[in-house]
C-alpha cells in the first residue's frame, strides 16, 4: 500500500492561501483609502481607522474560512490525486475570495454614493428655514 500524501498537500495549501489572502487584502485596502476619504469627507483619522477595521475583518474571515476547509477527508495517493484535490480546494477558496472582494467593493461604492447624496441634499436645502 502506498503512503498517503495528505501532509504534503496541506503544506502546499497553507502558504498558497495565506499568500493569496495577503495579496488580495493588500491590493484592495491600499486602494480603498481613497474611497474612505471620500466617504468621510476628508476626515482622515476616522477614514484610516475604518479602513484598518475593514482590513482586519477581511483577513480574519478569509483566513478563518481557508483554515476551516483545509481538511481533505480521504487518503490522497499519488501526484495526480494530490493535484486534483489541491486545485479543487484552492479554486474554491479563490472564488470565495473573489466574492468577498466584490462585496467589499460594493460596500465602498454604496458608502460613497450615500455620502454624495447627503452633501447634495444639504446644499439643495432651502435657506428660508434658517
Amino acid at each position, binding site marked *: 500500500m502506498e503512503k498517503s500524501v495528505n*501532509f504534503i498537500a496541506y503544506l502546499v495549501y497553507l502558504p498558497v492561501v495565506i499568500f493569496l489572502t495577503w495579496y488580495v487584502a493588500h491590493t484592495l485596502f491600499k486602494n480603498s483609502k481613497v474611497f474612505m476619504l471620500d466617504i468621510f469627507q476628508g476626515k482622515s483619522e476616522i477614514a484610516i481607522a475604518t479602513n484598518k*477595521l475593514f482590513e*482586519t475583518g477581511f483577513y480574519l474571515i478569509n483566513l*478563518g474560512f481557508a*483554515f476551516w476547509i483545509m481538511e481533505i477527508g480521504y487518503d490522497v495517493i499519488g501526484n495526480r490525486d494530490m493535484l486534483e484535490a489541491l486545485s479543487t480546494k484552492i479554486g474554491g477558496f479563490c472564488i470565495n475570495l473573489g466574492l468577498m472582494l466584490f462585496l467589499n467593493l460594493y460596500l465602498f461604492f454604496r458608502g460613497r454614493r450615500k455620502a454624495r447624496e447627503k452633501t447634495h441634499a444639504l446644499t439643495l436645502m432651502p435657506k428660508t428655514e434658517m
Partner: protein
Amino acid sequence: MNTLAYIIYLLITYLITVRVGLLFFRNGRIFIMELVHQDVSLTDAINRILLVGYYLVNLGYAALMISTWDTILTWTDLLVSITVMTGKIVTTLAVMHYINMLVIYFIGKRNQSILHP
C-alpha cells in the same frame, strides 16, 4: 500527542486574539469618541472594558473548544486539527467583529437622526 496540539493551539489563538484585540482597541477608539460626544475619559473607560470583555470571550471560547477535540495519532492529524480549530475560532472572531461594526454603525445613525431630524 493531544497535549502538544493543545499547547500549539493555545499559543496560536492567544497570539491572534491579543494582536487583533490591540488593533481593535487602537482603531475603535475614535468611533466610541464620536458616540459619546468627545468625552475622553469615558471613551477610554468604555474602550478598556470592551477590550477585557473581548479577551475573556475569545480565550474562554478557545479553551472550551478543547473539550471537543478528537484523539490525535499522527502528525497529519495534528496539523489538520490545529488548523481547523484555529479556522473556526478566527471565523467566529470575524463574525463578531462584523456584528460589532454594524452595531456601532446603527448607534451612530440613530444618534445622528435624533440630533438632526
